[in-house]
């Protein structure tokens, strides 16, 4: 055993607190240590080269690095010793920065003693380390994208153009998401549907993209490289092969219900297409509102009116099972319920509406054909008040974050309202204006300077009805004046929340979420498109509120991660996983019970007694160690963190070995083992 110890100064981070020279002297006296040295910055190029030279010159077979947290440079040092010819798992890192010098800044003597103990423990542990090889798991080079909004479509196109198969699953009958509902997009005032529908059609026609609309993901099993997914496609009762999208069926349907695509402001029939450019252009029967039920079919108006005979009342749900190697989550956002803002009359007055509803009023394919009308009486409003930060940045209402897009879309709404109603007045109440994107500030300045649009700095206190006007009580803090406005319509910029169903989906995929329900990325700065669960990637507003350019960028970023995953010849996973010693295993099954990832199954041996033993699925195992803690016979251990290694660390720190092991028998036949350790 020839161990080399390398102690890092890390500039003043470690050397400023710990006495490095004394450490080096003491460490060189430890058992099995044949070389000990110090270096200013071990992670630097010269630092790593020094390690490699020493390994070759002194023929080291184990290495200890005493420096920062292994999360920082663990991979760096492992690669360095691998290049020098050692197995990359024959290294142990003693964290004498985050766990020592940084937290004991004023206690230098004690910190030095603690650093010594940490290095001693690392030396003891690495002496028992075994060389390990990566675990190779199967990799299916196909991807599942959940969510067919602009982010999902972009990711699908990028991956499909890269040559791999994509399954795109969307809950509603059409792809396009919220971007399809918009009239014009800021800051260029491009028609939203005009720029999105070509992409939608490309996604539907792409030979590598399998599109499943009106479908949801029901079950996900497995791990990165081999996910087994069950998709359930709800029955449309219309045959997509035969439907031409002519609309004869909808004209004769007797049922009129609010159209979700128009945010409830317009009506649709029970057999419908969400909007004229929907993809796929196939009608859908909404079973909840259709007069017929699953078993009772009486009204056949649509069936009779359909020329190609595309209607089939006897369709059932379809279950599709697929196997994919990676999953991209792009399920997008919804708006916070307006009923939460009772002080603004949300939910009570029909003329207090949210941003998406106003968008549908402005849109020429909307319920009013682009004429802005009040939902209460259909008249054109001559004075509209826009309230920004209605619920966002409001810890009291549970949304402390900023929803990012509202300042921009409110400015756009005010401008488009003036285009639609030239003699109208628009008042915008803001606290701050966040216009950080490209050409966003110029756009807002243009809107602020438009005749008929007034920007008032203050948060509105109350909106109430007086006769048939909505009275708004606000303030302009810049001039110090409290104001009252008699408005015809009030538009609230509500917070953005993760779309319905995201929570259940995250639980199914075991992907963590934050306190607001947005999916958590593994590192907020450096890795914003990957979830902590390997193989799951995030794109769009499901990760945090964002506008269209950022959603598209993030979707392409997620696609690039998937493409780089698929471009490896094999998928190699870290070998820090559980390993079963078949001679010690008695088949009690405790480990399988406690495994949080379901990675352990009990199998029958092929001997006469047919005893059971534990088998670990290396792909599912995450190396957490619960099984190791549960096993009474020490038969299952995590490679790289075995019980002898952990014990060696403890004895090194305590400077002792147990002199006696006391065994007390408790009731029920359980044993209580206590190791009595006396210091040397």
């Amino acid at each position, binding site marked *: 055993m020839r161990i080399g110890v390398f102690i890092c100064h890390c500039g003043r981070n470690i050397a400023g607190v710990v006495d490095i020279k004394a450490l080096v002297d003491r460490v060189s006296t430890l058992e099995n240590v044949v070389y000990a040295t110090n270096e200013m910055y071990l992670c630097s190029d010269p630092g790593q080269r020094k390690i490699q030279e020493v390994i070759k010159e002194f023929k080291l077979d184990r290495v200890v690095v005493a420096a920062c947290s292994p999360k920082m440079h663990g991979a760096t040092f492992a690669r360095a010793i691998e290049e020098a010819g050692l197995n990359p798992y024959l290294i142990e890192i003693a964290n004498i920065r985050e766990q020592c010098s940084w937290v004991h800044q004023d206690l230098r003597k004690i910190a030095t003693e603690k650093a010594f103990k940490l290095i001693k423990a690392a030396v003891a542990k690495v002496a028992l380390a075994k060389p390990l090889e990566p675990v190779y798991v199967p990799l299916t080079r196909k991807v599942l994208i959940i969510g067919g909004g602009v982010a999902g479509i972009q990711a699908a196109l990028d991956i499909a153009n890269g040559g791999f198969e994509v399954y795109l699953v969307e809950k509603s009958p059409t792809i396009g998401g919220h971007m399809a509902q918009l009239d014009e997009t800021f800051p260029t005032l491009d028609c939203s549907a005009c720029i999105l529908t070509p992409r939608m059609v490309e996604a539907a026609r792409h030979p590598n993209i399998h599109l499943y609309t009106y479908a949801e993901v029901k079950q996900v099993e497995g791990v990165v490289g081999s996910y087994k997914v069950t998709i359930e496609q709800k029955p449309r009762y219309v045959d997509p092969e035969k439907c031409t999208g002519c609309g004869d069926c909808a004209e004769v349907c007797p049922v009129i219900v609010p159209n979700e695509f128009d945010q409830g402001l317009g009506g649709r029939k029970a057999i419908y297409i969400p909007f004229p450019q929907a993809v796929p252009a196939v009608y859908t029967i909404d079973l909840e509102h259709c007069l017929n039920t699953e078993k009772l079919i009486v009204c056949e108006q649509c069936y009779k009116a359909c020329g190609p005979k595309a209607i089939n009342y006897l369709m059932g749900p379809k279950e599709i099972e697929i196997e994919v190697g990676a999953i991209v989550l792009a399920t997008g956002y919804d708006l916070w319920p307006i009923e939460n803002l009772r002080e603004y009359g949300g939910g009570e007055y029909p003329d207090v509406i949210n941003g998406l509803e106003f968008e549908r009023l402005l849109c020429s394919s909307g319920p009013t054909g682009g004429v802005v009308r009040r939902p209460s009486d259909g008249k054109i409003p001559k004075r509209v008040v826009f309230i920004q930060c209605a619920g966002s940045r409001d810890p009291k209402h549970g949304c402390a974050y900023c929803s990012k897009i509202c300042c921009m879309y409110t400015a756009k709404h005010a401008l488009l309202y003036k285009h639609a109603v030239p003699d109208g007045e628009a008042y915008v109440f803001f606290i701050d204006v966040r216009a950080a994107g490209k050409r966003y500030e110029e756009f807002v300045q243009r809107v602020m300077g438009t005749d008929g649009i007034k920007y008032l700095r203050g948060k509105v206190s109350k909106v109430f009805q007086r006769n048939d006007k909505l009275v708004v009580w606000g*303030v302009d803090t810049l001039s*110090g004046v409290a104001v009252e406005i008699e408005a015809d319509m009030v538009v609230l910029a509500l917070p953005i929340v993760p779309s319905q169903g995201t929570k259940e989906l995250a639980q199914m995929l075991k992907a963590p979420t934050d306190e607001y329900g947005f999916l958590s990325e593994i590192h907020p700065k450096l890795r914003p498109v990957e979830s902590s669960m390997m193989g799951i990637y995030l794109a769009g507003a499901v990760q945090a509120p964002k506008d269209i350019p950022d959603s598209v960028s993030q979707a392409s970023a997620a696609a690039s991660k998937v493409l780089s995953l698929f471009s490896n010849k094999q998928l190699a996973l870290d070998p820090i996983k559980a390993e079963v010693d078949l001679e010690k295993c008695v088949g009690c099954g405790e480990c399988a019970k406690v495994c949080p990832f379901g990675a352990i199954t009990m199998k029958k041996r092929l001997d006469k007694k047919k005893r059971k033993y534990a088998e670990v699925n290396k792909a599912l195992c995450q190396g957490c160690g619960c099984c190791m803690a549960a096993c009474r016979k020490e038969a299952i251990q995590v490679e790289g963190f075995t019980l002898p290694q952990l014990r060696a660390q403890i004895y090194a720190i305590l400077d002792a070995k147990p002199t006696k092991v006391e065994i007390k028998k408790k009731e029920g036949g359980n044993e209580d083992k206590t190791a009595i350790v006396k210091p040397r």
Partner: protein
Amino acid sequence: MRLVLKKNDGLLKKIKAISGEDIYACYQCGMCSAGCPMGQEMDLLPNQVIRLLQIGAERQVLHCRTVWLCASCFTCTARCPKGVNLARLMEGVRLFLLRTQKEDHFSPQQMVKEPLPPIALIGALRKFTT
């Protein structure tokens, strides 16, 4: 005339000690001023009062009419998105002024001439007198 800002002379500390409120939580949205029923009579709006305290210009607040016009209706506190209890802060300023200046802002002789419910009289005595 420019307002000279320098390290405050403990005024803010005393007001904070009386009221116990974190004035730096306020991000000047103005919702309090927007809903204040006495807003139009006040010289400084409620959000301006807390702003002057935030920037260290407490002296300006001491001479305003605002704190005496405050009706303690708690609309500001109820609506504040950051949970700042502005009504309590106003009371803090009032108490500070009453304790240091030692003069009443309320004349019992004048009030007795009006037909007021007893609760208004007692409330006014508590709020405006030393």
